[in-house]
Every structure is written in structure tokens, then in C-alpha cells.
């Protein structure tokens, strides 16, 4: 190999090594932060559900929930996760413990950041579950079509409803897979 090709190869390898090093640094930092987040989530969920962790966290490729933790309370299997629900109008972080058939066992609001949501003293449920017509929030999706229920709050109702539907489906699928084994 002549000298010029050798120099090119060395330069290319140095650049690749630097890129690899940068990726490794970012990946290491992300594993550290994830580990810290996981620990915090596990503690919050164990406290909320009064349950113990029964296995490793499962990775869900969902925009609202990343990690689902299998829990057990008095021999009963449960699943816990921390959801990040919201859109450009605001975000809420919610710890949720679900039963194996996809029902909500317990919920806790961890934090809420209302970006441009209406200033309200009523708490996160009316902010994020929705205000519709004569009821505090619509009892079904058909009521959302009425003009007086169309408001910014109903965006968050849909987001919350969809996030929990997906979580319920995921948890039911997990429990079904475990039973199948």
C-alpha cells in the first residue's frame, strides 16, 4: 500500500475512532441516566402499588411509556409504569399500576407542566382528562363531537384515554404471553 493510501486509511480510522468514542460516551451517559430513572420509577411504583418488583423492566416502544415493570402483591401479578402524557399544550407524568387484565389498579400524578393550558386551580384531572358540556368530563367519545365539548382540554382527554388504552392492551398482551408459557 503506498504512503498516500496509508495516510488516508489512518485518517479515516482516526475519524471513525473519534465517532465511536463520542457514541460510546453518549451511550454510557444514557445508560447511567436510564439506570437512575429506572430506580426512581421502581421506588415510586412499589410505593404506589404496595407491591414488590418481580422481574426485569420490559421495554415498550411506545411514545407514552418506555418501561413496564412486573410487580407482585400478595401473589397477585401487577404491572407498573410511568407514563408521559401530553402534547404541545402541556405534559403530565403519571405513575400507574395495572392489573394483569389491563385494568387500572392505582394512579398517582408525579408532575404536571401546563405549557399554555388555562390557568386553573382545579387540579390535573380536569386539566388533562377534559371538560365537556354539563359533565366534568365526557363519559364517551360520542360526546366529544358536540360543539360545546370541543376545547383544548379535550386534546388532553384523548391523549390520556389513548395512552391508557395502549398500556392496557400492552399489559393484557404481556399477561396473555406469560399464561401461554
Amino acid at each position: 500500500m503506498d504512503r498516500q493510501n496509508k495516510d488516508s486509511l489512518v485518517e479515516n480510522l482516526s475519524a471513525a475512532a473519534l465517532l465511536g468514542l463520542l457514541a460510546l460516551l453518549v451511550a454510557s451517559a444514557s445508560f447511567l441516566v436510564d439506570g437512575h430513572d429506572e430506580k426512581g420509577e421502581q421506588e415510586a411504583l412499589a410505593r404506589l402499588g404496595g407491591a414488590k418488583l418481580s422481574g426485569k423492566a420490559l421495554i415498550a416502544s411506545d411514545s407514552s411509556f418506555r418501561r413496564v415493570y412486573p410487580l407482585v402483591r400478595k401473589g397477585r401479578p401487577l404491572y407498573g409504569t410511568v407514563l408521559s402524557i401530553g402534547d404541545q399544550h402541556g405534559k403530565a407524568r403519571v405513575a400507574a399500576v395495572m392489573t394483569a387484565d389491563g385494568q387500572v389498579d392505582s394512579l398517582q400524578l408525579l408532575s404536571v407542566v401546563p405549557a399554555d393550558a388555562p390557568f386553573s386551580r382545579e387540579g390535573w384531572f380536569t386539566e388533562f382528562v377534559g371538560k365537556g358540556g354539563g359533565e366534568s368530563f365526557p363519559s364517551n367519545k360520542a360526546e366529544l363531537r358536540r360543539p360545546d365539548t370541543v376545547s383544548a382540554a379535550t386534546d388532553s382527554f384523548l391523549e390520556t384515554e389513548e395512552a391508557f388504552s395502549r398500556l392496557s392492551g400492552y399489559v393484557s398482551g404481556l399477561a396473555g404471553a406469560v399464561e401461554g408459557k
Partner: protein
Amino acid sequence: MSYLAIVLASVFSANALLVYGFGICPAFRKERRGVWPQIVALALVNLFASGLFWLARRFILLPLKLDSLDVIVYAVIIAPIIKYLSRFIASASSPFLVRVGAAADEAVMSCLTFGVALIVTRSDYGLGEAVLASLSSCVGYWAAVMVLDSIRERLELSAVPPAFRGAPGLLISAGLMAMAFLGIDSALVHNLAR
């Protein structure tokens, strides 16, 4: 979400320019390389960027728990691939394709392309839905830019105070358009297309 809901949401209630503010700088640029080459270039770049990014994130990064590296993957792998493709198109003999390639080359490292790619890959879309959302975002962006261009022409002929001629007046007009888009509630769009 149904495909219709994705298209309506991407064009109206989640318009790339008027709701997210992506691509403001090129939108206010006066000179263009022709409307059709720009539209085709934008559509191609967004299609490839969102598609490749979705595949990389779903099949490589998420299984390895390396989703924090998605920015590096875009900057180091996906953007150069699309730049190479745009230069390949620009080397064609047809003047139309040369302009498409040049416009695509500029659009790769822009907040419109990367922003739309990030939004569609971090939502819960399949590959087809992600590509459709990306293309619809382009349509919505381009529609807003066309309306702003015609507003700009009218402003140039109007007696606007000197300090507000050009970009400041156009920004205020964009704000008034965005106000109209605020009235398009995403819950309504979602329900209409159910």
C-alpha cells in the same frame, strides 16, 4: 389514528410551519428555485429522512436501548445518505432534476426535515403511517408558504410603515394565519376522521 386523521392532523392542527415553527427561515426567503422542484425535493427528502429514521430507531436503536443515539445516527448516517442521493439526482441531465437535487441538498439539514422526522418516529406510528404523516406535513408546510408568498406580494404593494416592511410584516401575518389554525381543534379533526 386513521390515515385520514393523520393527513388532516399533519396538514392543519399540527402544521409544521404555523404550529411547530419549523422551516421559518426558508419560508421567509424571497428567491426560490421554482415551485415544483422545491415541492418534489421537500417531499423526497422528508420521505427518505422519516422512513430511514423510523427503520433505524425501531429495528436498531430501541432493541439495543440506544434511542439516545438517534440524533447521532441522523447526523452521521441518514443525512449523508440523503445528501448523496440529492447530489446523484442533481447530476442528472434534466434541468428539473438538477433543481430538485439542489433544493434537496439544502433541505437535508434543516429543522423542517429533522423536526418532522423526530415527531413521526417518536409517535406511535407504523412505517406507512410515519411516511404518510411526513408527506402530509410537507403539504401543510408548502400550503402555508404559498399563502405567505401571496401575502408578501400584497404587503409589498401596500403602505406598510418602513420598519415593518419585509420580514416583520410577514411574521405578523404568519401570526394571524396561525391564529386561524388555533381554531382547528385536533380533537375535532381526530373525531371527524374516526
